[in-house]
């Protein structure tokens, strides 16, 4: 089956495209798709990203269906600039 994967923020730049269609195994879940990206991006980015299916945050157990829209989301940073020290820089 086929899903459309969307990239945002730093991930869009990393993959040099905003989205791509991917062939995945029927019955594949979010966690299995997440693993496909392991090694394709820095470990820190991979560990900190969230995933959404059809515009809702989705945990690893969520089942994918043909035609789903899956988004890879780096930690969000909307609003005004943040005073807090860098969250990612502070974690190892």
């Amino acid at each position: 089956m086929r899903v459309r994967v969307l990239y945002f923020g730093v991930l869009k730049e990393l993959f040099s495209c905003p989205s791509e269609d991917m062939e995945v195994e029927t019955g594949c879940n979010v966690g299995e798709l997440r693993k496909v990206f392991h090694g394709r991006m820095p470990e820190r980015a991979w560990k900190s990203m969230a995933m959404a299916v059809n515009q809702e945050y989705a945990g690893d157990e969520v089942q994918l269906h043909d035609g789903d829209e899956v988004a890879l989301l780096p930690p969000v940073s909307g609003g005004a600039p943040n005073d807090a020290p860098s969250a990612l820089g502070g974690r190892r």
Partner: protein
Amino acid sequence: MQIAIVREVIDAGSITAALKAGADGAVCVFDGIVRDNTRGRRTLYLDYEAYEEMALNQMRSLAEEAIAKFGVRDIAVVHRLGRLYVGESSVLIVVASAHRGAAFDACRWLIDTLKKTVPIWKKEQFEDGAVWADGEPFPEEIVRG
């Protein structure tokens, strides 16, 4: 409720005026503006982008949750995308309520939660380079589902 993602200047005055009603005793406004530096490094401008449909849905559900949680009467949440320069408003949150305590609490909760969960990102352009701003880590329930 007024929930919007815009690309033009956010008109705080008219949004606030439109939200007020006779039952209100307080209107609390949070106006998030672009600061001229991040940790001492001089900022020239910020480029904001969003997963727009999802961001709007998230903003709407946060506003609904805030009304239920704090008992305020009405809320406006407007976020701007695109290139924003120092001093410009990137986000406006307006909370109208019978009493000020609930208005302050709801307003604070809304901006803090928006910054952790609404899919909007910004790239900061400094004098000497550009970086995607580090967001706070996602809340556990979002990553694990």
